[in-house]
């Protein structure tokens, strides 16, 4: 039997958080913001309903951020998340329209079918990105920028820019529902499932290890016999599936689908991933950081809404500013890492 060293789990937790600078920073920011809100707007922020509302709001961009994270770990990026999400939701909205009965209800198989097909469409669109990146060697940032516009364009062409709605309310009601004794929003559950699946792939499987290695050095990956094209195809397939799911969640939240929903999410999901400590050059990043960043962003957004003097039109200003600030902070932490590394080397000799 192994002897388990008795230690204080709280202390261990704090030590683990302090070890990772990005996580440490995020936790500090989160605590600071929550304290600030506690002092200034306690009653209007700290209520069960408010937290439930937030938990129903962040999954749609949170799931997108998880997809972007996977792409960024390989050293790429996915700027077509919103396009893929909207195309998926519009196509599925038409399907729901067709399935909606005269009584306004849906057949029992409708929602599972929408999810299966939605994931499939997302996967197909992601694969399209993957082919652009692997077969035609287009840098991911350009490939997905182009395909994102292209997907939105398809949405426009199909819908003429109008919202697709009037499908059965059963869909929105099901997803906007809360389960487990009316506590947990279904959207949050979907987010948790996606997060667990991606966490599992990244940390427990060979695929995850290979992704990190590929992101570190595509050249060394090739010389190690990794099939880099296959890995990248799978990467963009994964981000496409995340986009598809996010689209389905958005469709429930708005009870409709439209070509220009969620326009702010492209920047926001990248902000989250960078904030979460994923290295935009690839090879580094943990899902825990990204989840913390998702929560932090939602808290910021909701918290600011509690100050009526600040218009929600400032949200672009805020997200852009935070993204630049975080990158500048990263510059300093990376530099410190560099210094520490140097020390490590010199102490070896």
């Amino acid at each position, binding site marked *: 039997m192994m002897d388990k060293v008795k230690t204080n789990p709280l202390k261990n937790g704090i030590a683990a958080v302090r070890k990772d600078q990005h996580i440490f920073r995020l936790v500090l920011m989160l605590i600071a913001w929550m304290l600030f809100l506690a002092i200034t707007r306690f009653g209007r922020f700290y209520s069960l309903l408010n937290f439930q509302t937030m938990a129903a709001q962040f999954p749609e961009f949170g799931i997108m951020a998880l997809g972007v994270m996977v792409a960024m770990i390989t050293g790429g990026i996915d700027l077509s998340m919103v396009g893929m999400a909207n195309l998926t939701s519009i196509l599925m909205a038409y399907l729901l329209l067709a399935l909606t009965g005269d009584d306004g209800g849906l057949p029992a198989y409708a929602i599972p079918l929408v999810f299966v097909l939605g994931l499939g469409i997302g996967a197909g669109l992601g694969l399209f990105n993957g082919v652009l990146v692997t077969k035609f060697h287009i840098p991911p940032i350009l490939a997905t920028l182009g395909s994102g516009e292209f997907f939105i364009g398809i949405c426009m062409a199909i819908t003429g820019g109008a919202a697709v709605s009037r499908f059965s309310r059963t869909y929105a009601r099901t997803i906007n529902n809360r389960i487990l004794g009316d506590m947990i929003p279904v959207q949050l559950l979907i987010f948790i499932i996606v997060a667990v699946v991606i966490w599992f792939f990244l940390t*427990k*499987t*060979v*695929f995850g*290890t*290979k992704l*990190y*290695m590929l992101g*570190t*050095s595509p*050249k*060394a*990956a*090739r*010389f*190690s*016999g*990794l*099939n880099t094209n296959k890995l990248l195809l799978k990467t963009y397939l994964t981000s496409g599936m995340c986009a598809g799911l996010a689209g389905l969640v958005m469709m429930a939240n708005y009870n409709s689908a439209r070509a220009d929903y969620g326009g702010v999410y492209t920047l926001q999901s990248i902000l989250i991933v960078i904030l979460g400590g994923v290295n935009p050059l690839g*090879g*580094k990043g943990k899902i825990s950081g990204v989840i913390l960043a998702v929560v932090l962003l939602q808290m910021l957004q909701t918290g600011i809404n509690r100050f009526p003097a600040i218009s929600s039109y400032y949200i672009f200003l805020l997200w852009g500013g935070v993204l630049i600030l975080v990158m500048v902070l990263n510059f300093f932490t990376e530099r410190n890492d560099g210094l520490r*590394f*140097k*020390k*490590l*080397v*010199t*102490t*070896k*000799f």
Partner: protein
Amino acid sequence: MADSLLKVVDVYKSFVGVKALQDVTFSIQPGEIHCLAGENGSGKSTLIKIISGVYTPDAGSIEINGRQYNKLTPIEAINNGIQVIYQDFSIFPNLTVMENLAVNSELSEHRKLVNWKRMRTIAEDAVSKIDFDVDLDELVGSLSVAQKQMVAISRALIFNTKLIIMDEPTTALTKREVSNLFKIILKLKERGISILFVSHKLNEMYEISENFTILRNGKVVATGSTKELDAEKFSFHMTGRKFTKRHYRVERLSSEPMFEAKQAGVQNGFEDVTFSLHKGEILGVTGLLDSGRTELALSLFGMRPIDSGQFYMYGKPVTLSSPKAAIHNKIGFVPEDRLSEGLFLPQSIADNVVISEIDRLTKKAGLVDKEKRAEEIEKWVRELAIATPDPNNLCQTLSGGNQQRVVLAKWLACNLEMLVLNGPTVGVDIGSKHDIHGILQDLAKSGLGVIIISDDLPEVLENCSRVLVMKAGRIVADLETDKTDESVILSYMM
């Protein structure tokens, strides 16, 4: 010694409690070629950085042209005519050769407009100084490692310098380029320019330098005239260890060849290459830089699939269309550029060791089998004596020799039949080089087919039982190493 160009007196330097240099004293006369030698971590780089003003010594002083500096800044060093050619070349891969060569003088003269004619003249002049035959409009990024270094050397020669510090300038050069470089160095000497030549190759020290200084653990352990140095003394001073040379002898040669190439060729690489490799032997492949040896190495690993001829393993034809196919056929490859091709430096040693065999370390559905993985890592770190307190440390914390062991470990873990090594000990210190040779010889004895592609002739002669000499894409000689010597091989290479 009053008229020394450069004098380093009682210099101490430490980093967070570690003494990098202790009581280092040495001097260079004008026009002297001085060799500075030492293993990795001996303090060579620190000393260079102190001379060039990058680091300030904790104690001691530097005298240039009789003027004493306690604190030398990089600008003062450059103004005193000190130029350093670092190992990483400091070049712009996305610019052409001409632009790389001319950019500094264009900038320092504060020119606002680009004069292409002038740039071309500067560049032509620079490359002709070392008889460097290169297309000036070629992008530097598409040049070979050796050519890149030649660009860096040409560029340093543009400046009117009094002392050129060359940090292991010959590591990636071919024999001919090295002798070219040596000719240049001698010409520079005639003009009164001093050279501080950092190297750990004894034959080069003999050939070019008059005096030497050897550092070990931050201290000067030997200094004096190169004539008084011999191989045994040299490796003892360098490492503090005594070595015995181990010439590889084939013990059990399989009767059937394990690997054969018949009339193999790759466009713009090599043609009509036919050879066979038997179990138990170490086959050397040597040749000049453009002889096709690197292309052959890449083809054997499926990085550049052959477009004519055929490879065979145990008599059966095999198609090596990708690295994955090569690994499937149990062929491993240690690439030329360890840092960019062989390793994932910012990742853990552990992941680097298991990455190529990771598909086998699974339970079901691609799940990593943690125990198997840990066992493999433990096994290979132990077997190849990789010096690390914890395999979860990053690979970049290791020294060059240990990094190369990680590359070896990665392939040995794959349970290979054949291992191709392209420059297995480039940039590796003597101690590790000796150990790596030992490992390769033991592996060959235990039945692994080994092909060493190298232009380090002593290495080839010591380790290989047979050597193929390549020239202009063809095999021009197939020699048994115990019946030949360096001069014979060289005559075939040139």
